[in-house]
């Protein structure tokens, strides 16, 4: 099963081989700043993700930002969409759920880094909540 996705402007497109991990919503400070709220993601083994376009009309494309000593975040340099997150050595890529063209019935199964959550919203969803990663 191949699923496709893209950033908002289309400079970065990808395909991914299923199955996709269920959705985790991260409330950590980095995800809040990057996304503007909380970052929802699925995840696959890194070798199951294929970039199908990485070049916009003006040379735009995927750029990796080293967000910590052991992780990086991939975004589009044209529209700024937050597409990917990888932890060094884990060989997995987290994919921003909002960038998938079809979510195929994925469900949110946990909220993480609740210790860092903003004070301007409540989580009323029934998915389990964790103070940190789990």
């Amino acid at each position: 099963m191949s699923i496709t996705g893209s950033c908002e402007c289309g400079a970065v497109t990808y395909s991914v081989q299923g199955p996709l991990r269920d959705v985790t919503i991260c409330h950590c400070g980095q995800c809040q700043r990057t996304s503007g709220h909380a970052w929802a993601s699925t995840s696959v083994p890194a070798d199951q993700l294929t970039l199908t376009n990485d070049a916009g009309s003006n040379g735009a494309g995927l750029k990796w930002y080293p967000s910590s000593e052991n992780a990086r975040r991939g975004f589009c340099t044209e529209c700024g969409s937050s597409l990917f997150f990888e932890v060094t050595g884990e060989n997995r890529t987290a994919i921003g759920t909002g960038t998938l063209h079809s979510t195929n019935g994925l469900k949110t199964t946990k909220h993480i880094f609740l210790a860092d959550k903003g004070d301007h919203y409540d989580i009323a969803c029934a998915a389990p909540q964790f103070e940190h990663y789990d």
Partner: protein
Amino acid sequence: MCHCGQCRKQSGGIWSSAYVHQDALAISGAVQWFASSKTAKRGSCPRCASFLFWKANAEDTISFSLGSLEGATGLTLSKHIFVADKGDYYDIADSVPQKP
């Protein structure tokens, strides 16, 4: 809280924001502006892509992300918008008013 397709693609989830008059917001550092439609643009950091601003061309207000604020905000959510475009992988279970 905006659930539209553009906000979900750019943020990865849902975009939460507040807004002020454009004269009340001082920006330091570089902003990458993306014309997301004929009527609006979105501003992000060129280094890490943090999705910071949304600005309607014809309006004199500017929206800024709540995720980018430091410390306690003292704000409360007032509405969910573009709920018709929301993803199928989450439910909105709070009592905040929703608009399609």
